[in-house]
């Protein structure tokens, strides 16, 4: 059963990693992906990124993605934490941890989780630029392609 959290507050990677490893000796590898707010978008300086989500649906959607990862790989632990609200460049947005007995499953499951999160969890990003403009981030064909490589 994955640990899923959606929160405005920052998260502590060391504490989350320690929680996954606590009291067990069967884990041989822990995959970690940390998503971070970039400071420029196509040459335009970013002031902040605001993440909106669908509260009644978000955690269940992430849990369903994590359950699919647990179906595909023998995971010994899984944590997904996604932040919402207003974030500044350099701030972490999302943490994915996947633990397994060997690195292949841990790394593959980590990649799968972040690829599916980007296309199947109800979050929307709005960018606010230093020049005063604002724009909703458009879904990227590259993200769909990255998610699609896990199908079939």
């Amino acid at each position, binding site marked *: 059963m994955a640990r899923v959290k959606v929160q405005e507050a920052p998260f502590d990677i060391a504490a989350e990693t320690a929680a996954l490893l606590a009291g067990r000796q069967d884990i041989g590898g822990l995959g970690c992906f940390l*998503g971070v707010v970039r400071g420029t978008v196509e040459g335009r300086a970013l002031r902040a990124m605001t*993440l*909106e*989500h*669908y509260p*009644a*649906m978000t955690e*269940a*959607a992430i849990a369903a993605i994590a359950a699919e990862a647990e179906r595909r790989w023998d995971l010994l632990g899984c944590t997904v934490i*996604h932040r919402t609200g207003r974030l500044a460049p350099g701030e972490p*947005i*999302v943490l994915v941890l996947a633990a397994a007995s060997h690195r292949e499953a841990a790394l593959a499951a980590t990649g799968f989780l*972040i690829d599916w*999160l*980007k*296309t*199947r*969890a*109800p*979050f*929307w*990003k*709005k960018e606010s630029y230093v020049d005063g403009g604002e724009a*909703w*981030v*458009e*879904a*990227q064909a590259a*993200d769909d392609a990255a998610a699609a490589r896990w199908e079939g």
Partner: protein
Amino acid sequence: MSGYPLHLLYFAWLRERIGAGAETIAVPGEIATLGELRDWLSQRGPGYASAFAAGKTVRAAVNQVFATPETALHPGDEVAFFPPVTGG
């Protein structure tokens, strides 16, 4: 069938164009599917017309589960409309 209530939610630029994030409305009984609801909503006013304009990709969920235009609607359903997701 007479009209029935739906709880509607709008996110991101759909919320901004429609000017509300949530509303409960009575829809005509002949609206049976999500696709029919979307067509009916697009006639409700300029904000709705803009939100559901052709060429704009709009996704939806019924009772917090991703849905398609063919998804059947029932009284009291929670129907959310939103752009393609951009989290992660």
